[in-house]
């Protein structure tokens, strides 16, 4: 039986190697595609009120605009939202009153909501931190996804509804942040709605029962 030549053996080996690398590349492309797809999938949109709810215990701030962010204290993606919020606070000082409401479910201990994210938020000067007991405030403002931001003007009209990140947990420049900065600087007065990327603030069953 004739033995295969070294050259043909090498060529076959090279072909197999090339095919293997190609297969590997395809697999990785799929993997990265799935990952990006997940990161770019926004959370449930809020049924946000067009005006600041009068019955809410949460009071609007003294500045021209009042911003309320709803966040899940354990959501890793919301670290990027808080970071972008802090950047906005630094970029437009004295223009926007900022409040962050962390979900604090009933029936859990007080330590449940005392996360690093909450401690980070408390450490940001000018940012008011509120523990939203059993998500009552979120219900009042129609927020469903961690990272949801609502901005109202001095007259109580909603001027922004959305998130401050361009993807899940993606820190850095994004459309919502740029718009709010423009509002604060008086460069625009038009309202804007953007997707929100983050964990669900409450269980699906609770959300379904939410009016």
């Amino acid at each position, binding site marked *: 039986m004739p033995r295969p030549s070294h050259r043909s053996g090498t060529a076959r080996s090279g072909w197999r190697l090339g095919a293997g690398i190609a297969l590997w590349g395809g697999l990785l492309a799929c993997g990265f595609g799935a*990952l*990006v797809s*997940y990161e770019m999938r926004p959370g449930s949109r809020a049924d946000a009120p067009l005006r600041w709810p009068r019955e809410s215990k949460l009071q609007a701030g003294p500045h021209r605009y009042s911003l309320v962010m709803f966040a899940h204290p354990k959501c*890793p993606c919301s670290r990027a939202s808080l970071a972008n919020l802090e950047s906005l606070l630094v970029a437009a000082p004295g223009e926007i009153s900022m409040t962050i409401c962390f979900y604090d479910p009933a029936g859990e201990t007080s330590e449940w909501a005392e996360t690093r994210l909450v401690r980070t938020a408390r450490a940001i000067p000018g940012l008011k931190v509120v523990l939203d007991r059993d998500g009552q405030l979120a219900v009042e403002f129609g927020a469903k996804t961690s990272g949801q931001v609502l901005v109202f003007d001095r007259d109580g009209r909603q001027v922004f509804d959305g998130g401050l990140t361009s*993807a899940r947990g993606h820190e850095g420049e994004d*459309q919502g942040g740029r718009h709010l900065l423009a509002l604060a600087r008086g460069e625009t007065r038009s309202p804007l709605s953007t997707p929100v990327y983050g964990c669900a603030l*409450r269980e699906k069953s609770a959300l379904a029962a939410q009016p």
Partner: protein
Amino acid sequence: MTKPISVAPFPADYVADDALIARRFAGALDQLRSRTNRFFAKLLVVQWLATVALALIVSPKAWEGRIPTTHIHVWAAIFLGGAISLYPAWLGWSRSGLTQTRHAQAAAQMLMSALLIHLTGGRIETHFHVFGSLALLALYRDIRVFATATLIVYVDHLARGWFWPESVYGVLTTTVWRSLEHAGWVLFEVTFLSMTVAASLREMRELVARQIGLEKLNRDKDQVVQTRTHELARSEEQFRAFFNDSPVGLYRATPAGDFIAVNPALLKILGFPSFEALRTAWHSAPGFDGGRAQFLAELSVTDEVLRRDAVWRRQDDRPLHIRETGRAFRDATGKMEHIDGTIDDVTEHRQLEERYLQSQKVQAIGQLAGGVAHDFNNILTVIAGYTHLLLRDPKMTEPLRHGLDQIRIAGVRASGLTGQLLAFSRKQHLQPRVIHLNAVAAEMDSMLQRLVGENIRIRTVGVSGLAAVRADPGQIQQVLMNLVVNARDAMMPKGGLLTIETANVVLGPEYTRIHHDLTPGSYVMLAVSDTGVGMSPEVQARLFEPFFTTKIPGQGTGLGLATCHGIIKQSGGHIAAYSEVGHGTTFKVYLPAVDAEASAEIPAPLQDERRGAGEMILLVEDDRTVRELGCELLTSLGYKVVLSANGLEALDRFKEYPQISLVITDTIMPHMGGRELVSRIHEFAPRLPVLFTSGYTFDALGETGEVAPGCHFMAKPYDPAVMARKIDDCFAESRS
């Protein structure tokens, strides 16, 4: 820009050709890239594990109210990170060195950066992983790898910017230029990394070239070292063989003179079985002279080879004459480290020297004796001859006869003295015959007993079947008598036992090697032993020296043993003495044994004069008085005499008187000597008998002291009776 390392030019002989450099460089590069493959294999796995850990720390869970679920980043880190790293890691171990492996690992490294950026939410700090990875990829020393890495970064950025622009740029619309800007920074780094890699490759190639040169250099050096080592080993082996096989004693010693190493020859010379035995005995043995301290002191102040002679004693206490040479060797500071030297056994040389000196002395005395004997014997011949003639006169009165008799006795004694001088100087006339020493001893038995006196008993032990010897019986009698007299004097006045012994002996090479005048073979020994006072080694050393005597002045001439020595030597034999003080002495005479039958004829005592019958005798003698005496003696014996004063004249006389029936001639004469005269006469009359006369045998008859066949010899001084018998012998032989 990176410059090549500046190094000194390599020796031209060791610059390799480009093809070899290229082959070795490619091999070295393959090895380096294989190592890098394995490095990245490990690095990728480590990064994967680190990514999983990061995901678990940063975003372990996603939440839905109070309900946690595993965060998608954890699964991405595990599965996507695993997919990124494991396959290239496997390639790095199993397909190391291949181009595809290299590029796959480069792609994986950049995709790991992408994954990390995803997992950290696009933090700008995480982007440094991209640039760090590019720097790590420079380890491959392959610029093409940067192309793959850059392409991965660009495609990733471009694709995400195209499909999800807000995830990259934070806006929903953008242009391709943003991706190009992103890739531009990557290219910025890649450019400099590529320059560094190119410089590194050049340096690597230069190092390979130098490595090849160094290997060749090392091979050459190894060859030289191997050759030198071989030569050194050979030299050492040769030196060791020389050291061990040298017949001369060699040593290395400390500055204090203690031996560090000695060769077998030195052990043999000193008589020690081993070096340890020598070292043990070195300080305690009395045989090693203190004079060596002086020798060592002299060595310590010079670098020259010094020599000295000394007398040591061997381990068995025998005296040992040595000649020692030595040289000091010093260290860099000039301090003496050791001494290398030789010790040669010159005992035999010393003995030979002493014998040579003795021989020179004997020869000088012999020459003196010979010179004196020639003229002195002529004088004694005249004295003795005329005394004999006068004593024949019947009218001689008694007082005159007594006086003449005393003159005759004095002449005989003077003749004996001259004979002894000639004997020890081996210039004695010999008349050798085949004889038995037992017969000689027996012949002299009664005479010897009278000689030694009553308080000395003579015991004769003659072995039966004793071989014969060829010697002059008269001279052997003289030897025996001298030895007996010597023994008697040694035993006086107490007396004792004197043993005369004969035996057949075989002298081997070991004996004849010491006594160079002998050849190995069969000998007949004649031993004379006494129980006297013995002799000290110093006396033994001078025993046969002429005129050496231990007797009081007037009792000995010092010629007795010297005469024995001369006679035995002249007879081809050997005489030796063995003595111990207080125990006695033995003299042993060795004479070569011969196969011939011994002659029963022992010299007969002198008979009455025979008378001639008028035969004509040619008497040739240059000394006028001797010539006249001879004429009178021959005439008185009844012969007619024709006289000549030299050889030429005698030749004329012989031609003039063809009836001449005997020629009596002196040997040493002016114009023509006796031997030439006889030779010329024998041309005309080959059978004519000849009787030589001389006072000095050596000149007359040559070294052997023996006359030619058909000729006879009559030593001066002679008296009428001797002359008559010799003439009668000549005629008798001529007639037979």
